[in-house]
């Protein structure tokens, strides 16, 4: 038997839904066909039941409509105070989201899910508030009428006879954990209405006549029942998926809704999305941007269609192209679309020789399913306006054409002395062709008419009259017109193609430039600079990158002064765009775009355009989105590069520490053994001569000093390699550190000849003085240990270009053979198992200290003999010192 395996995609969806619900509040919707069925009552009853079971229930907002039974149910319930909002000149009492969030309640009752909030609110609709409550882990009970469901609103509008404005996305409905249908047969409802139990405000008394008709109520009830049945069906499906019961999996459908730039197309989108939901398919909404409809009105129209589509979670694509059918087919092919939804009657006038769009598509790809939806043609006026503002035309071009025709006529009048009039036709034709290519169709036709007229007037007998004596001239007249028409069509298409290509190229070039700049960035400051220098001028806006700290709080920055951090934080926390042009906190001055990278949100991009509407076009939005995701990716790349770097450093440290430990134990034990043995000798051999006693004691002291040196180096090395070592870098004169090192080595150096070569004009260096001193002490100590007592030691420094070179040199026996680099590794010595101990760490410590200062250290042979250690550290720019007033 074949194993029944759940479709992984489906399973993933169920899992993600369950995951999403984990930690999220549970939404319960009391759903009804229309007002008066008792949703609020049912909700309050359910809430009261929870309340009595000890759940912390709070009433967020409930419309009692002055109904006594409802009021009675409210008694004894904790209720949140309403928020007073001054909006458009009046004070509105509304649900207080922040109070609900901070009330500590586990369950909040919020009436009327579809309610439209005042514009000053955070969310445009109350369902936005509810979503936020759910996201905060608070359970919500709410009520909803069927006509407010987005996918139903259109049909309901038709039934009710009034436009339904307050809609709730179906997603909210579908994602609710429970939907309770509150049902009342229409007759009972009407009886309640008559008994005055359904209260309707006086203002909509006339609606009552229209609305509460039995026919309406039956239709709405049917829709409500069906919608709940659909939901139950969906629940069953998801149950089956998670329990791996079903064996039949429908193949995934993908619908493409093709719209043109007209307001009436909204219905097409609504219809398409409703279909999509029925078919459990995905939905694309596509508009083909023809070269001719690039005027502002159609742009605005496309923008609102895009917004509508995106609100309903459908992807919107604006395809540039001059052949609608071809562009649609291409898109359908690349996106694996199975069905097309086309509006029928969108092109009101189709010449008989031109195939309708759906015919052309069906012919080109018979496998595509095509669904035609009847759509009202746009009103005439709108179309007319669309024509009048065609980009080809302006009045100046007519004047130019007239001038050109006059000029041609003058030339022809001169040429007629040498040529026969029919030969001059070509001259006029040339004029028309040039005009049609340069000035567009309208000017070309005007020029053709003028040319024929002037030719007839000046060159055809009877001269200086319009009488057309010969029909053959009618032929040339027609021919000129046709030539004008054809060439102007070719010309305008060429120009339009060039314009589209140019616009596309500019956009692509921009995205490419941003991407290239970002790919070179390896610090987040560089990305901030790219935002400022590349992206800001592109949108003519102030742009700031707002980055979070390690606790996910966004940090204020200098560039981001204009930004409202609380809105930015909201966008960051919720991973949704907020502010200008969105439905969340839309009163904000700037748009806040969360920078979502594959792993997590990396920050927020704040964009404040100079002109509030300038970010509205779909092209700009897409461009912004593209820039945003490039930035997010770059930020993520930098983050992981840092993590990798840190890991590498940590691993290296780990490895080093291990080898260190084994070596250190040897070097520690040797002096300890000696000290212990010597001390015991002193203790027991009481009859030791006085001078031998002194010798033993000084040997102990010597060993202890060695041990001290080793321990100091060890501790310093451990400190250098511990995570997050902070250098205490300050500006020092180098001679001070050299002096201190020499002073500290004092007695040991006193028998040696030590010279210093420090120019008095040496600039200050920024170093951690005690660590730098440690380096010098180690180098000097090495020179003392590995050179004979008569060798000279030279210590000096010089500034060359951007670096300070500091060296310690001796004229001793020089370096042992081999690569000098190896001495900088811990526990490598010039001579194996040397009697001189405690230096295995010295040079390794020097190297790590100097590396931490951004410098280098190397060993080389000194001239003419001996060893030279050279340290290079960057100079930087020392802080200024105020000149002292003259004494």
């Amino acid at each position, binding site marked *: 038997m074949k194993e029944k395996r759940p479709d992984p995609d489906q399973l993933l969806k169920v899992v993600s839904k369950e995951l999403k619900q984990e930690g999220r509040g549970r939404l319960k919707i009391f759903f009804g066909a229309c007002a008066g069925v008792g949703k609020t009552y049912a909700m309050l009853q359910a809430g009261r039941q929870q309340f009595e079971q000890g759940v912390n229930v709070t009433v967020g907002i409930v419309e009692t409509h002055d109904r006594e039974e409802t009021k009675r149910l409210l008694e004894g319930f904790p209720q949140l105070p309403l928020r007073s909002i001054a909006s458009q000149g009046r004070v509105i009492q509304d649900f207080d989201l922040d109070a609900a969030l901070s009330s500590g309640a586990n369950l909040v009752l919020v009436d009327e899910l579809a309610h439209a909030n005042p514009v000053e609110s955070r969310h445009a609709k109350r369902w936005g508030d509810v979503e936020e409550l759910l996201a905060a882990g608070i359970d919500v009970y709410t009520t909803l009428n069927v006509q407010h469901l987005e996918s139903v609103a259109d049909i309901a509008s038709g039934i009710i006879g009034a436009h339904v404005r307050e809609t709730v996305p179906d997603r909210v409905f579908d994602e609710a954990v429970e939907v309770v249908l509150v049902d009342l047969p229409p007759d009972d409802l009407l009886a309640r209405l008559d008994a005055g139990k359904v209260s309707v405000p006086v203002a909509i008394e006339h609606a009552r006549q229209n609305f509460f008709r039995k026919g309406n109520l039956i239709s709405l009830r049917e829709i409500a029942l069906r919608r709940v049945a659909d939901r139950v069906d969906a629940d069953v499906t998801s149950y089956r998926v998670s329990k791996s019961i079903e064996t039949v999996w429908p193949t995934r459908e993908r619908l493409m809704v093709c719209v043109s730039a007209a307001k009436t197309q909204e219905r097409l989108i609504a219809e398409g999305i409703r279909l999509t939901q029925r078919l459990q398919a995905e939905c694309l909404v596509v508009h083909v941007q023809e070269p001719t409809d690039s005027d502002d009105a159609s742009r605005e129209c496309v923008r609102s269609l895009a917004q509508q589509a995106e609100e309903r979670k459908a992807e919107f694509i604006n395809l540039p192209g001059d052949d609608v059918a071809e562009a649609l087919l291409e898109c359908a092919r690349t996106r694996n679309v199975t069905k097309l939804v086309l509006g029928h009657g969108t092109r009101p006038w189709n010449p008989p020789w031109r195939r309708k769009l759906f015919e052309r598509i069906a012919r080109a790809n018979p496998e595509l399913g095509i669904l035609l939806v009847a759509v009202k043609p746009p009103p005439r006026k709108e179309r007319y306006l669309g024509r009048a503002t065609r980009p080809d035309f302006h009045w100046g071009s007519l004047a130019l054409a007239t001038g050109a025709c006059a000029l041609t006529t003058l030339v022809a009048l001169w040429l007629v002395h040498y040529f026969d009039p029919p030969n001059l036709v070509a001259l006029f034709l040339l004029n028309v062709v040039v005009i049609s290519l340069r000035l567009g169709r309208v000017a070309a036709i005007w020029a053709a008419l003028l040319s024929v007229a002037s030719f007839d007037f000046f060159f055809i007998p009877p001269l200086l009259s319009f009488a057309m004596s010969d029909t053959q001239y009618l032929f040339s007249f027609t021919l000129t017109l046709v030539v004008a028409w054809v060439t102007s069509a070719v010309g305008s298409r060429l120009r339009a193609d060039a314009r589209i290509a140019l616009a596309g190229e500019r956009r692509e070039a921009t995205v490419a430039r941003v991407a290239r700049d970002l790919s070179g960035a390896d610090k987040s400051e560089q990305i901030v600079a790219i935002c400022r220098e590349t992206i800001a001028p592109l949108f003519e806006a102030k742009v700031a990158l707002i980055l979070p700290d390690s606790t996910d709080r966004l940090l204020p920055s200098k560039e981001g002064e204009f930004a409202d951090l609380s809105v930015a934080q909201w966008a960051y926390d919720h991973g949704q765009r907020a502010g200008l042009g969105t439905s969340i906190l839309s009163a904000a001055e700037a748009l806040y775009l969360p920078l979502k990278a594959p792993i997590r949100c990396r920050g927020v991009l704040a964009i404040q355009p100079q002109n509030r509407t300038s970010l509205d076009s779909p092209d700009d939005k897409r461009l912004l989105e593209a820039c945003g995701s490039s930035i997010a990716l770059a930020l993520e790349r930098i983050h992981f590069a840092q993590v990798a770097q840190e890991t590498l450093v940590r691993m290296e440290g780990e490895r080093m520490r291990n080898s260190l430990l084994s070596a250190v134990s040897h070097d520690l034990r040797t002096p300890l053994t000696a000290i212990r043995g010597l001390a015991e000798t002193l203790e027991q051999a009481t009859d030791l001569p006085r001078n031998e006693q002194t010798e033993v004691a000084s040997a102990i002291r010597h060993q202890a000093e060695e041990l001290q040196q080793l321990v100091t180096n060890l501790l310093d090395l451990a400190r250098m390699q511990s995570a997050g070592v902070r250098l*205490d870098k300050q500006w020092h*004169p180098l*001679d*001070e550190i*050299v002096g201190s090192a020499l*002073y500290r080595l004092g007695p040991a150096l006193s028998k040696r000849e030590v010279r210093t070569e*420090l120019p008095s004009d040496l600039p200050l260096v920024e170093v951690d003085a005690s660590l730098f001193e440690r380096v010098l002490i180690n180098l000097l100590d090495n020179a003392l240990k590995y050179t004979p007592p008569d060798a000279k030691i030279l210590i000096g420094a010089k500034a060359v270009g951007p670096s300070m070179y500091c060296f310690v040199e001796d004229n001793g026996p020089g370096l042992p053979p081999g690569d000098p680099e190896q001495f900088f590794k811990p526990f490598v010595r010039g001579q194996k198992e040397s009697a001189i101990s405690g230096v295995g760490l010295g040079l390794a410590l020097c190297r790590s200290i100097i590396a931490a200062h951004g410098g280098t250290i190397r060993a080389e042979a000194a001239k003419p003999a001996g060893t030279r250690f050279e340290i290079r550290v960057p100079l930087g720019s020392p802080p200024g*010192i105020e000149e*002292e007033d003259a004494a």
Partner: protein
Amino acid sequence: MSKPQILIVEDEADIRRFVRIALEKEGMTTAEAKSAEEARIDSATRRPELIIVDLGLPDGDGKAFIRELRTWSNIPVVVLSAREREEEKVEALDAGADDYLTKPFGVPELLARVRAQLRRAALLNPNQPASPVIRFGNVRVDMATHEVTKADEVVHLTPIEFRLLAALARGHGKVLTHRQLLLEVWGPSYVYRPHYLRVFMANLRQKLEDEPARPKHIITELQVGYRLACLSDGP
């Protein structure tokens, strides 16, 4: 002068022991305290001439003890501290300690510091009139006339350089922290600009030391401060 009495405040018995033996061998008497509490009592009852304080005491902070002591006494205090605690040394000096020794330290070093502090205390004795002239090496500084000579040649110092030298001289071998010197010479607004101090100190070394890179008198206590060594007084 009678035998000076030294109070050793240290919780580690072996360290107390060798410090005591070393000091007694130098002809001093000693008293020992194992904790800050004992130190408080002993310093008040025994009236020692000098106190050696370990900063890490079991029952509290050596710095707090010094701060308390300074409210009623200005006897010299030498601090013992572990090397890793640079800031602690600076804090102890700012609290009123006069010198410090970093563990592990040698006996000769300890004795030198103790002797220097005792000498300084004797110099500051209010019963003797303070001499306006101080000397170190071949340098002679007249605090009254602001005249500085080195090997009998006049050295020209700027006003700030002189103020700096005067501050060090007044310390008589006490370690002065960066903060103390910046406050005294430049004023409170310069406290966070130690590089000023370093630059002017470098100038002083250039003018007054025979070998500026190996100073014998103007001694740098790296990351802590400066002190003037090998002072002698008199005309």
